[in-house]
């Protein structure tokens, strides 16, 4: 089997991602349409929460992907720092706006869900606050990319910020638990727990989760391709000027 690092070559990456992109995009569309329709129209209402429970099909996957997007940026940043593959740095850059969008979706659907359930749009609960802080981290990360013109310097500095930010994001998460015992329920989905949500809700949720995962993959791939093309264009313009 070919080494994973071969795709660090932009040419190979472009060829490979061109083949992969329609599949991920198609799977994302398929899973999201199936999962959301199944979840919204073919599951029973919860006996206590009524039909508001159905927002779970947007809320939980986007929240999970918001955190995973940051983790992916962290891994990509480490690869950039250690092995200096440009594709990796560009993938981290490409993932940031997608992660921000997922964070916003999770915050928004959480507020919409919280209003009828908890009687409040917003509560300074550890989970909610941690997500708000994650959102701020995304903003700072993107702002740093914007502010620095030299692309390699920007990649290096944002990678360092991502590493340090990850450590502080984890500390903040636990600091917040210390600070306030919250309103948000504990995790209702884990693979090993015995008391998961009922299967009727569980299967469509899994499909939605897969859909959001593929959606993230598709968006990041296409954005990375865009960044690579932009970089090439930049190089071409620079060469024209020299000639």
């Amino acid at each position: 089997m070919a080494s994973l690092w071969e795709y660090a070559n932009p040419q190979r990456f472009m060829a490979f991602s061109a083949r992969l992109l329609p599949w991920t995009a198609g799977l994302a569309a398929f899973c999201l349409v199936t999962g959301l329709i199944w979840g919204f129209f073919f599951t029973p209402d919860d006996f206590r929460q009524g039909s508001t429970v159905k927002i779970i099909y947007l809320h939980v996957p986007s929240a999970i992907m918001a955190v995973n997007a940051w983790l992916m940026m962290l891994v990509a940043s480490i690869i950039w720092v250690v092995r200096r593959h440009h594709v990796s740095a560009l993938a981290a850059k490409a993932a940031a706006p997608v992660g921000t969008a997922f964070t916003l979706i999770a915050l928004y659907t959480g507020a919409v869900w919280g209003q009828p359930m908890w009687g409040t749009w917003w509560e300074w609960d550890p989970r909610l606050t941690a997500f708000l802080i994650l959102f701020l981290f995304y903003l700072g990360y993107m702002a740093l990319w914007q502010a620095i013109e030299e692309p390699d310097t920007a990649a290096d500095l944002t990678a360092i910020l991502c590493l340090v930010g990850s450590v502080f994001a984890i500390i903040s998460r636990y600091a917040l638990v210390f600070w306030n015992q919250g309103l948000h329920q504990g995790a209702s989905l884990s693979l090993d727990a015995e008391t998961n949500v009922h299967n009727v809700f569980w299967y469509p949720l899994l499909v939605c989760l897969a859909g959001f995962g593929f959606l993230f993959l598709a968006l990041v791939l296409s954005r990375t391709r865009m960044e690579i093309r932009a970089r090439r264009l930049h190089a071409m313009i620079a060469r024209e000027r020299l000639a």
Partner: protein
Amino acid sequence: MIALVKRDLILALRAGGGFGLALAFYLILVSLVPLAVGPETGRLAEIAPGILWLGALLANLLSLDRIFQLDWEDGALEGLATAPLPLEGIALAKALAHWLSVGLPLAVLAPVLAVLLNLPGAAIPWLVAALVLGTPALSMIGTFGAALTVGVKRGGLLLSLLVLPLYVPSLIFGALTVARAATEQDPLPSLALVAGLSMASWAGLPFAAAGALRINLR
């Protein structure tokens, strides 16, 4: 390294701006709070721990871009980079000088402002302890942020956007220490966490700051 700390301290004292400005900002911010929320002493005492910490944090933030900016502009930073002292040591010295010229004076001033806000007397020693132990973390994180943004023109706003989320844990535990002391709970655990955060950031962040400086000096 000691020479560098001394130089930065003398610059902070004599060049005006940095040293007194942060203290004056702290004073003004805290005295504006009663005007904004009303003068009832009970309510003021309740929010005092948070306000005192938030004010210290913002006053700290205000002086961060001075850490490297002036040395960057006149080229002194490049001279320092070629000195036998590693960049990690320079970052550490810069953070130490910043703490001595901003963080420590803020902690000394805080009891006076605490009286203005009617903080219960029993909490005042804890406030000073929390600020003395907690502001080193703020200075070190700020030095890291300043090292990241030193190459950016007018990076002040960007600096605060990057640094403020990193201040969250120190702010939580610092304000919690004071609030617990004010309500006669045991403040020691959160004080220990504040001190731990400072020590951890002094142990780890000089490397990140030096990395950022090296990239910016490339």
